[in-house]
């Protein structure tokens, strides 16, 4: 199945990805508006990938994580740095590794 691409972030980010062919874009200014847009992107069956800047994702904090938890396989969601390269200090994946697999890393290391 083929799907379209949506991008949420600042002006530079959405201009760049629009030039690359992304179908839907939203510049984040007001919280409620962006939240509604995100819900729309997540619910639409035709979007396969949502790119969102770390800065915006972080601002939505709990609400955004909640949306990730309740979405299905699609759309895929990827957090990306903006022009300034901003990324949160704590990497989401590292957090998960620590929370879930943590102790098992040792097992794996022994195994290798």
């Amino acid at each position, binding site marked *: *199945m083929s799907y379209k691409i949506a991008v949420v972030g600042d*002006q530079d980010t*959405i201009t*760049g990805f629009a*030039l690359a062919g992304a179908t839907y874009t939203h510049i984040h200014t007001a919280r409620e508006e962006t939240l509604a847009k995100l819900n729309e992107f997540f619910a639409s069956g035709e979007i396969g*990938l949502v790119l969102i800047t770390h800065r915006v994702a972080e601002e939505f904090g709990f609400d955004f994580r909640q949306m990730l938890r309740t979405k299905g396989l699609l759309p895929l969601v990827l957090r990306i740095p903006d022009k300034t390269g901003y990324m949160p200090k704590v990497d989401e994946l590292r957090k*998960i590794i620590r929370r879930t697999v943590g102790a098992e890393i040792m097992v794996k290391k022994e195994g290798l």
Partner: protein
Amino acid sequence: MAMALAVAPTRMELLKLRQRVGLAQKGYDLLKEKMDALVIEFFEVLKRIQEARPKALEQLSVAHRALSMCFAIVGTLETKQASKETKRELQVDVSTRHIMGIAVPAVEVGEVERNALIRGYGLHMTSSVLDEASKKFERALKLLIELAEFEESAFAIAREFEKTKRRVNALEYILIPRLKEAIKFIMMRLDEMERENFSRLKRIKAMLEERE
């Protein structure tokens, strides 16, 4: 998996409980194997993320630099206008593959890079700086799509791992100990009953002997 300790102290019940411990133990062993396999899968995806992420992020920052250049030379308004006029119909092909019942995305990206003509922002806009910025964002997008597949897979595997771990823990720390506790209780009661029987028999025997 709550279970009351209210069991009848009979041999029949003991047999049933032993079968239940057997089943629980089997479930525990298998789910433990599944957890190990999930760890293997998780680290395989993690390795791919570690390869893909730096490349994608580097390309993204290259693209942003090209865009800044474009804003400066072509003009901010003109660049934005071009981004609105360009054909924006890039498609990603997403299907699924399965790792032990976990659906993980399998993404197929066709050719993302286009030429100026296909991009379709009016020819009056044509500028090599604009083309350069577009091309660099197209490349970044292709790499980010792959990264998205890997990251989503990692999250899906981690979620299944958490779920499996909860079940394993429930078996290990709740169900199996409770069943074993119940078995111990029945065995004690049966022992007691046997001793009581034994002493009753002894008393009866003594009474009979006295009467003689």
